[in-house]
C-alpha cells in the first residue's frame, strides 16, 4: 500500500534548504518517494501508511526549521 500526502512550505530561504529537507524526508523509514520544490514550496511524499504517517513528516520538516502547511 502506498499513500501520498502533500505539504506546502512557504518559508524555504534557499534552494539547498529544500534539498536538505528532501533528503531528510527520504531517509525516514516508510517513505518511498519525496519531491521538494524550492520554487513553489510544494512537498509531495509517497509513503507506506503501515510504517509512517504524515505527522512524522511534519515533525521532520519542523525540526529543520521550516513551517509545513497542509496543501
Amino acid at each position, binding site marked *: 500500500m502506498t499513500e501520498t500526502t502533500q505539504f506546502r512550505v512557504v518559508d524555504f530561504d534557499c534552494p539547498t534548504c529544500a534539498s*536538505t529537507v528532501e533528503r531528510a524526508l527520504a531517509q525516514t523509514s516508510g517513505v518511498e518517494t519525496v519531491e521538494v520544490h524550492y520554487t*513553489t514550496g510544494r512537498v509531495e511524499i509517497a509513503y507506506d501508511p503501515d510504517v509512517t504517517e504524515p505527522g512524522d513528516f511534519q515533525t521532520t520538516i519542523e525540526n529543520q526549521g521550516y513551517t509545513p502547511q497542509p496543501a
Partner: protein
Amino acid sequence: MNVTQYYRNHRKAVVTAASGLLYAGGWSLGYATAADTASAFVLVLAAAVGGYDVAKRAYYELRSRTVGIKTLVTLAAVGAIAIGEYWEAAAVVFLFSLGSYLEGRTMRKTRTALQELLELTPTTALVRRDGDVVEVPAGDVAEGETVVVKPGAKVPVDGEVVDGESAVNQAPVTGESAPVPKTSGDEVYAGTVNQDGALDVVATGTGADTTLQRIVRRVEEAQEAQAPTEQFVDRFARYYTPAIILLAVGAYALTRDVLMALTLLVIGCPGALVIGPPVSIVSAIGNAARKGVLLKGGEHLERAGKIDLVAFDKTGTLTSGEARVASTPSREEAVGDAASPPVGVRGFDYDDAEALRLAAIAEKKSEHHLADAILDAARGAATSGGVRPDGGAVAEERIPDPDDFEVVAGSGVVAHHDGREIIVGNRALLDECGVTVPDDVAAHVREREAAGETAVHVALADETTDRSEATGDGTVVGVIAIRDELRETAPRVVQELQAAGVRTVMLTGDNERTARTVAEEVGIDDYRAGLLPAEKQAAIEAFREDGHVVAMVGDGINDAPSLATADIGVAMGAAGTDTAIETADVALMADDLERLPYAVELSKATRRNVLQNVGIAVLTVVLLLSGVLTSNVHLAGGMLVHEGSVLLVILNGMRLLQY
C-alpha cells in the same frame, strides 16, 4: 493566539530580533565603555542566540551529506569566536538570520501568488435539490446537479448554462478583460464572476476537478520544471562551494590569515546565483497565470524570450472561425430585396436559392467549417419570411441527404443526389472534374476573393459522366461567397507585436487573393497562401532555417503539428480543451489573441531579468572574492554584501509578479 504559538509561528523573526538587539547592545557596550569582557560576553550571546538554529540546520545539512551555507556560516562564527573576533561572529550570525528571514518572507509571496487564484472559487454553492434551493459546500455538488448563480456571485463549479442570461467576467481563468455573454448551452468556469443575471448551471466539474484547479496544478508543474539556466547554475554551484573551501584552506596555508579564510567560507555559497533565475521564472509564470496565460515552464519561457517571428494560422486565429455566407452584396450588384437567400449567393443562369440548396445537399454530411456556413444559410433561406412556424422541419425537408458524397481534401466535395452529380468546391476541384468555368463566373469569384471572402463554386453534371477524362461536361450554376470575420483584437495584437520588434506572418489554406486582402486588413507583415497543413509546417521550418525564432499561434487541435514544429507553439482557447494545453508551450486560456503581445513581452522581460540576476550574482562574487583576497572585506562585510545580493536578485525577480 497564545504566546507559545506566536513564538512557534514567528520563531525566525523573534530569534533574529533578539540576536540583533544583543548584537547592538554588545557593540554599544564595547564602544561606549571600556567593559571589553562584558561586551564580548553579550556579543557571544548574540551569536549563540542567532546561531543556535543555524547550527541545528547545519547539523541536518551534514547529516544529509551536503555542505551548505548553514554549515559554512556556523564554521565561520565558531572560528571567529575562537580567534577572539566576537564582533565579527555576532554580526555574521545576525546578518545571516536577517537575510534568510527576509528571503523566506519575500519568497512566500511568490509561493502564495497561485493560492490567491484558487481562493477565488467560492466555498459554497446554491443547488436545486428536491424543488428547493439549498446551500452546500462547493465540493459536495455532484456532477449533473443544477447550481444557481446569482448576479454578482462567483461561479462555484464548472458547468453548462441551462437557463438564464448574463455576462460573466472570466478574467480569473482566461484573462479576458471584457465580460463574456452567457446563455443556454454556454460553458462557465468555477472562479469566474457572474455579473448581471441569474444563471442556472448544470455542474460538469466540481471540487478539485475544475478548469481553474487544473490550470493551477499545471502552473505549479511549470514553476517546478527547471529552466536550462537553472540547471547550468545548479551544476556550477555544486563545484563552486567545494572550490571556495579549498581556496580558504589554501589561503590560510599561504597567509596564516584566519580571518581571510573564514571570510572565504562565508561567501562560499553562490546564493544569488542559484536563487536569481528560479525567482525570475516563478514570478513570471505566476503573473502570467493570473492573466490567463499558461507558460509551460522555464525552458519554454527562456525560448519564448527570443521570439522574433510570430506566425498565425488564419482561420479561427486571426478570424473568429465562424464562417458565414457573406451578407454584403458584391460591388457590381445592387442591394437586392431583403428576402432570402443571402446576397453572398449568386446563381448563374440559375435560381440563387436553388444553387444554395444544391450546395447544402452536397455538404450536408461534411464536417468542414465552410459546410456549416452553407447549411446554416440554406436553412435560414428556407425559413425566412416566417411562412411556416415550424421552419426547422421545413428546412430539413428541403435539404435531403445526398445518395453519396466524397470529400476531396483541400478542394471541396463531390456528391450525388436525384440522378445528378453536385460538385461544390474551389477552382482546382472544377478543373479536376473537367467543368469549364465561364468568364463571368471567374470574374465574380475574383471580385469576392478580392473582398477577402472565400468563393465556393457549385456545379451540376450528369451522374453518368465519366470522370476518367475531362469531358468538359458539367455547368457552374452558382457561386457562394463565405466570409470569416476578423477578430476585433487581431489588428491591434499584430500592431503591438510589431512594436515589440516581432515580425508577423499569416499562414492560410486560402487562395492568394483572399489571403492578400485579409493580410492587408490585419496589417500583417507577410503571408503565405494556398498552404496545405503539411505545407504550413514546411513554412515554419523555412522561417527557422532563416534563423528566426518562430512562434506559431493556432487553436492547438487542427494545427498541432505546426505548433510542434515551431520553437514556441501558442494555443488559444485552451481553457476549454486539455489537448491544446498538452501540445502548446504557451497556452492562452481565452479564445482570443488579446493576451498574446503580453505573453511575448513578458517572456522577453523574463529573459532580461534572468540575465540581470546572473549578472548581479557574478559581479557580487567577483567583488567579494577580490575584496577578501586583498583583505579589504572581512566577515561581517562579506556577509552583508552576500545577503544583500541575494535579496537584490529576489526583489528584482519579483518585479515580474507586477509586470
